[in-house]
Structures are given as C-alpha cells and as structure tokens.
C-alpha cells in the first residue's frame, strides 16, 4: 500500500513565524501535491511538483513556497505565517501514467495565533 506521511498532525505557530510542513511518500511517485482544506471550500491546490526540483503553482500559491530536493519528499513553507493560513494541510502523491488517483496523507492541522 502507498503510504504518505506528514511530519505533524497538529501544529500551533505564531504570526510571522516561518513554518515547514514535511511530506514523505514511499511509492517512488513522480507527482506530489499540497492542498489546504477549509470548511465548505473543499480542497484547494497550493503547489505541485512533477519531478525533483520542479514545482508549479496551484490555485492559491500566495504566501507559500515549496521545496522538492528528493523524489520522496515535498515540503511546504510558510515564509511568514499569518492567521488566515490557519487550516488543514493535506499532502498527496501520484505516480506517472494515466492513473490519476492521488494518495493522501493524514493532514496537518495548522493553527496560527
């Protein structure tokens, strides 16, 4: 089974702090994704990566950056956390080819105070 793990389940940070959210997958997937999930808004794509050192902006990249130095790891960075970034953050991965199913991690609930 594919396993996607995220570094923290719950995180509390202060406004202005730099925040790192880590995601690791163990299936040698090429594609990795970061979403945020807010009540009533579904999942919104922040950034994705289709290869090591490659990244593409999603629908809501403002205030975020990403890093993919190794194939199995995709990091989401909040350079200066703000209260409107309080959310559930979900990482996902997908293999190459025509099977578009994404496998999700358990999520990180981030609270910025």
């Amino acid at each position, binding site marked *: 089974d594919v396993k996607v793990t995220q570094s923290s389940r719950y995180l509390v940070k202060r406004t202005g702090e730099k925040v790192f959210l880590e995601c690791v997958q163990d299936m040698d997937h090429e594609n990795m994704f970061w979403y945020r999930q807010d*009540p009533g808004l579904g999942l919104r794509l922040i950034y994705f990566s289709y290869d090591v050192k490659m990244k593409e902006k999603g629908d809501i990249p403002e205030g975020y950056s990403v890093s993919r130095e190794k194939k199995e790891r995709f990091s989401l960075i909040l350079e200066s956390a703000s209260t409107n970034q309080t959310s559930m953050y979900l990482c996902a991965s997908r293999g190459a080819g025509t099977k578009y199913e994404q496998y999700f991690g*358990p999520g990180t609930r981030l609270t910025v105070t």
Partner: protein
Amino acid sequence: GESVGLHLPTLSVQEGDNSIINCAYSNSASDYFIWYKQESGKGPQFIIDIRSNMDKRQGQRVTVLLNKTVKHLSLQIAATQPGDSAVYFCAEILRFSGGYNKLIFGAGTRLAVHP
C-alpha cells in the same frame, strides 16, 4: 479533518438503506472522475474512479454513474453501514498543455448513517 463536515450538505440515512450522493462537475471536457471518502481526522481515501467513455462502474458495494449530458456524477452505496459515515468528494481531471494535469475537487457531501 474534524471540521470538514461543517457547512456541507448532509445526507442522513438509516443503516442498511442505500445512499446516493450527487455531484455536478463544471468542465465538459473532463474525461476522468474520482470519488474520495474522508473520515474524521483522516486524509481523503480513494473509493472508485470512472472514465468518460463509461456510464457506470461498480466496485464493492459502490456504483458510480456518469451522465455527461448534464455533467452529473453520482455515488451509490448499497446497504449503508455506520463505517460509511464520512465526507464524500467528487473530483474531475483538468488537463493543461504541457502534459500535466490536476484534480478539481467538489466541496463535498457529509453522509451520516444512523442505526
């Protein structure tokens, strides 16, 4: 997560009944669709997918129906069980020039199963 179910449409069913969850999609060119299930405190989990060259696909206790004419997708769960209680999302594929693609998720429907 725990608050995902807030502000979502809710479908309440009795244990043992069949459930039908509906989804309208936006892009008439979408050719691939997925249903996900998200239990409280967990990430979304794949249930079933369907390509646009099919109208129906069956899995274990679940059936997905696709009506391309009205851009509508439904998930049918037979003999609903308490463990089916979750938020259900549909997703459609959006393709870009350059070969990459992304999934567009619906807002979700909360399924509440009562004994």
